[in-house]
């Protein structure tokens, strides 16, 4: 009797220890923390302005953030391989302008073809970045700073600085991102589908694994038979393809294409990644992190005007969030040591 009681007691202890550990792990996981912060943020806004948390408004916020989510996924993969892609917004602007001009010149071209052209053109531009990094060994920040300017320049050259306005575009061209399916516009669905696809790519494919390996330790990846340059090339190509897709969605949703579309947006994209816990040093990050980082910025951008906070505060808050995120990263990297003690093994 006594011994079974003791056994029961031990088991209870074991269970509480496990539960405590799981709770700790859940709370300390970056994604959970970010999720919590976003929920708190939404809650705070709701106190001042209850209509903010209606389903339709939240769906609107998500829809507004979709372009950022799409680009952040691509950027996340690039950063994972120790690179950076500053040309995404310029890529978006160029692809947007090209598809808008195709639409004006040949109104009969179906939207499906337009989307394929946008993704293809974006991918070609991304691949160009990737080739320069892979074959010529130029630092990614220099390559994409250069192509960023080149792409913007090309937008100006092909458009002569003129705008393509709403009345010049066909209805079908403009309708796609707004077309609703199960209450959500296609813009949102595209982001959701991209999240799902790239979640699978990053966790379940050899390509995804190679991105993590290359960023985590390029030497070891080379020794394991992985071509580091080629992996980086694919990361840039994916980032470019997503930027191209977003280019069409952006231009058709706002129904206007001009040289400075999404000017400076590449910095928001990098910010979303950093806030989402993607390590600038490479090797650490997830699709979930990129999604939440983008949503965090999206919520701030949409919520603050509602409660009458000046746009300058928005910038300050986004900036602080970036610094806090990086500081948290550095701290969590410092804190855990090796497991040498036998008693510490179980908590791992």
């Amino acid at each position: 009797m006594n011994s079974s009681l003791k056994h029961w007691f031990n088991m209870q202890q074991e269970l509480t220890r496990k539960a405590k550990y799981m709770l700790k792990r859940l709370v300390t996981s970056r994604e959970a923390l970010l999720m919590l912060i976003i929920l708190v943020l939404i809650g705070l806004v709701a106190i001042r302005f209850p209509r903010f948390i209606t389903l339709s408004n939240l769906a609107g916020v998500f829809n507004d953030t979709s372009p950022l989510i799409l680009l952040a996924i691509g950027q996340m993969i690039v950063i994972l391989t120790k690179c950076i892609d500053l040309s995404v917004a310029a890529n978006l602007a160029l692809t947007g302008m090209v598809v808008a001009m195709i639409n004006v010149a040949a109104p009969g071209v179906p939207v499906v073809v337009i989307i394929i052209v946008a993704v293809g053109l974006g991918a070609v531009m991304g691949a160009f970045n990737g080739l320069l990094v892979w074959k010529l060994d130029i630092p990614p920040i220099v390559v994409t700073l250069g192509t960023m300017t080149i792409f913007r320049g090309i937008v100006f050259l092909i458009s002569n600085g003129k705008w393509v306005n709403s009345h010049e575009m066909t209805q079908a061209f403009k309708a796609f991102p707004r077309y609703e399916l199960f209450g959500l516009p296609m813009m949102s669905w595209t982001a959701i589908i991209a999240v799902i696809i790239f979640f699978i790519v990053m966790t379940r494919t050899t390509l995804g694994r190679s991105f993590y390996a290359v960023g985590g330790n390029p030497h070891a990846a080379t020794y394991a038979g992985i071509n580091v340059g080629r992996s980086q090339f694919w990361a840039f190509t994916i980032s470019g393809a997503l930027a191209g897709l977003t280019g069409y969605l952006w231009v058709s949703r706002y129904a206007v294409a001009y040289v400075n579309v999404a000017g400076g947006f590449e910095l928001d994209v990098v910010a979303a990644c950093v806030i989402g816990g993607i390590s600038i040093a490479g090797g650490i990050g997830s699709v979930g992190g990129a999604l939440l980082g983008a949503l965090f910025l999206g919520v701030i951008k949409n919520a603050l005007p509602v409660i009458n906070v000046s746009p300058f505060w928005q910038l300050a808050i986004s900036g602080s969030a970036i610094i806090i995120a990086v500081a948290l990263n550095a701290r969590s990297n410092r804190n855990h040591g090796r497991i040498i003690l036998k008693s510490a093994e179980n908590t791992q």
Partner: protein
Amino acid sequence: MKFFQLKTILTATEFADISFSLRKGEILGFYGLVGAGRSELMQALFGITKLISGIIRIDGDEVVIGSPADAVSNGIVYVPEDRGKQGAITDLPIFQNITLPSLDRTSKNGFIRLAEEFKLARKYTKRIDLRAASLDTNVENLSGGNQQKIVIAKWLATQPKVIIMDEPTKGIDIGSKAAVHEFMAELADQGLAVIMVSSEIPEILGMSNRVIVMREGRIVSELTGNELKPETLVQYAAGINEKG
């Protein structure tokens, strides 16, 4: 009988006139002073650096090794000296480190099969007697000895024919050192051809069937049997005893 054969290979700046052969089940030691070009030679065999000329034969067939991937698919693996820099990816969990060079076998059409991965990882961590809480643990949390075991397990999982070990016991604790030695002997018994680069004389004398001494990018001597004495090794390595 000569299972692995190498004929006069050279690179522009690192080494020249290197020829040697290797039998199954043999441990061939490479001794030399630091900077003699041993690691560079091994890296060239593994496809990291480009060779200007040279022929590599495995089992009589001439093979072309242009990249580490070629080497791995031809059954040559390299356990590097600096496991922190070249061996393990410390941000990834144990099982992902072990399956990294074997992803072809644990995936289908580019999709990873997790069950296969865990099966492979479990098989080889068991074989190297790794004591870690779980295969999900990130490698950064392990001790140096255990990290070295992971790197060895990773290469064993590719089912190699020739295993190159560069300073296999540098900087690890005595217990792990003995385990690595025991393990190397076991591999040779199972018919693998082992190349061991080491600067520790007791290790090289204790483990090798044959020792090649290198100096300034060239092979200066090949020693077997009772020629294997500490003085001889050091004399050749330092260039004191020059009779060819």
